């Protein structure tokens, strides 16, 4: 956990908890800090709550879910106090979102050019021509050659990879101060993957844009992120700078993930076969450690309690033992 007190934080969330209407806890006490210009990676298996965390920042929690937190500030804007309309336009202006590619994030009945540019026209107060010129530039930056044809297409005329590149270009339209990317490269082949990630790095360096990247792909996160959060069953298991995390992993789950890396290709929606057992059923509150059922080091104490440990101000993990 990053304990530096600093008002200039990009994201300052304390003890975020997300529950369903029936009281099921999906995310418990997640604390998230981000500095300006930082690239933060969140890694975990699917349904570990990593996407939900991102969606709470984007004010997109699905209906029926409820969040609460001790503190929830993004770029100084207090989500706990601010009016929803203000939050909405704030997000539109300052944050770019690259969604998981599995969904239909582009409207099937609207041409690309009419949906890629509307946010930009609104917030940059530019003309439509100017917006389309910018869109063409960004679209070619993510590796699309025939930009004219692409902009005049409907989403369903494009392949999954093409659509995802449109999403990425769309997120960059407003020169956002922060990008939230949820499995941004899942549908792309490895060449384009590299191209896109390099583009993120360029944007990050040139405009000091922060990136919050969510992935199940530990290899990608390792290559790309400066600081990493390991999430499991709605809780943070371990948090550290990249090199620290890989040289000195403390939590059994992190260790297991690192061991799995060489295969590098965890398929989405598939639990990690290499780690025995399942993500616990979150409808029943878990006593003690949430990872205990799959943990090779399980002791009796894990059934009743779990300990937060801080090795130094940049390295946190949630386990009794010092392995």
């Amino acid at each position, binding site marked *: 956990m990053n304990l530096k007190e600093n008002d200039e934080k990009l994201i300052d969330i304390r003890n975020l908890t997300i529950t369903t209407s029936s009281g099921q806890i999906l995310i418990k006490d997640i604390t998230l800090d981000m500095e300006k210009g930082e690239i933060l990676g969140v890694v975990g298996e699917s349904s570990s709550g990593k996407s939900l965390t991102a969606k709470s920042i984007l004010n*997109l929690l699905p209906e029926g879910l409820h969040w609460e937190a001790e503190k929830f500030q993004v770029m100084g804007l207090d989500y706990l106090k601010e009016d929803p309309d203000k939050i*909405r336009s704030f997000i539109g202006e300052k944050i770019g979102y690259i969604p998981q590619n599995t969904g239909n*994030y582009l409207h*099937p009945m*609207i041409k690309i050019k009419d949906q890629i540019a*509307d946010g930009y026209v609104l917030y940059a107060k530019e003309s439509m021509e100017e917006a389309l010129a910018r869109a063409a530039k960004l679209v070619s930056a993510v590796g699309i050659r025939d930009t004219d044809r692409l902009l005049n297409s409907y989403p369903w005329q494009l392949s999954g990879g093409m659509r995802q590149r449109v999403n990425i270009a*769309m997120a960059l339209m407003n020169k956002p101060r922060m990008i939230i990317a949820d499995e941004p490269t899942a549908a792309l082949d490895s060449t384009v993957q590299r191209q896109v990630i390099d583009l993120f790095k360029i944007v990050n360096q040139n405009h000091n844009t922060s990136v919050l990247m969510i992935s199940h792909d530990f290899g990608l996160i390792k290559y790309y992120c400066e600081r990493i959060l390991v999430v499991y069953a709605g809780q943070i298991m371990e948090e550290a700078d990249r090199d620290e995390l890989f040289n000195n992993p403390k939590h059994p789950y992190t260790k297991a993930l690192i061991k799995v890396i060489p295969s590098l290709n965890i398929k989405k929606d598939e639990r990690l076969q290499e780690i025995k057992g399942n993500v616990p059923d979150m409808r029943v509150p878990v006593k003690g450690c949430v990872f205990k059922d799959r943990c090779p080091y399980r002791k009796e104490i894990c059934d009743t309690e779990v300990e937060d440990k801080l090795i130094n101000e940049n390295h946190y993990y949630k386990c009794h033992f010092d392995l």
Partner: protein
Amino acid sequence: MLNYIFKRIIHAAEVLFVVSLITFAVLLWIPGDVAQLILGSDATPEKLEALRISLGLDRAWYLQYWDWLKGLFRLDLGQSYLFGQNVTTLIAQRLPVTLSIAVFSMLIASVTAILLGSLAAIKKNTKTDYFVTGLMQLGSSVPSFWIGMLCIVFFGLKLKIFPITGYVPIEKGFIPYLNSIFLPSFVLAIGEIGMLLRTVRTSMLDSLRQDYMDMAKVKGLPKVTVYLKYALRSAMIAPINVMGIQFAKLVGGTVVIESVFSLPGLGRLILVAVEQRDIMLLQGLVIFITFLVILISLIVDIAVMFLNPRIRVQMEGE
């Protein structure tokens, strides 16, 4: 996709054929002698026989049907014995009234249903939603002729805003015309809003759940844009289909409404034909109205295809 249009037209033609067969068969079974009906009870047997032959009633039913069918292709629906005029002429005289009411009430119903249905979907499970859906339930349970009578008393007699009865053709001025058809159209629309509103609400709810709505929100677009540009666009396909079906029901519904407001439209003509057992007139009216309805639903189907760009572009590719 042209293939689809072709199939759809073939289907419509089939249905029309079945409809003509049913209409003809049903009215063939009518008890009593048509010649007797026309000439009255004091006609001599010779005269009756002569009329039967001239009407072709002595021939086999399929020959009669064939003749009638051939007439249909020439837009000749036969003679009304009651009016002594061509059925086609009678229809042409009264069509503007019925069509005005049907189109106008469809307009009222669509606009109301789209507005209120979207509102109910956006405010799902709130008091607004319950109020709107409850009102719609009530609206589709109240018989139009009763509402019509109440409206005549309230708007016509108490407030004196609208004329109570009668029809003013559009040639005599647009405002008087509008005045004369507004109340009947409005009353007819009340019964139609319910089902349409339900469809709009359901498909709007579905559309609001889509991922692209998330994206529109994240882009910080104003609510109006989000709902109008993104949500309503994909939510309109199912309601347009329903509108086609509704229109058919509406044309039938004018029978009652025209009776309440004493309007000289097709509905009144049907009622007269039924009461006086003017078979040729009834046959002609039924086949004409049904043809109109089938044609409209065909057009709506094809229109929906064109509205849905996915299908449209596939078609261009062919």
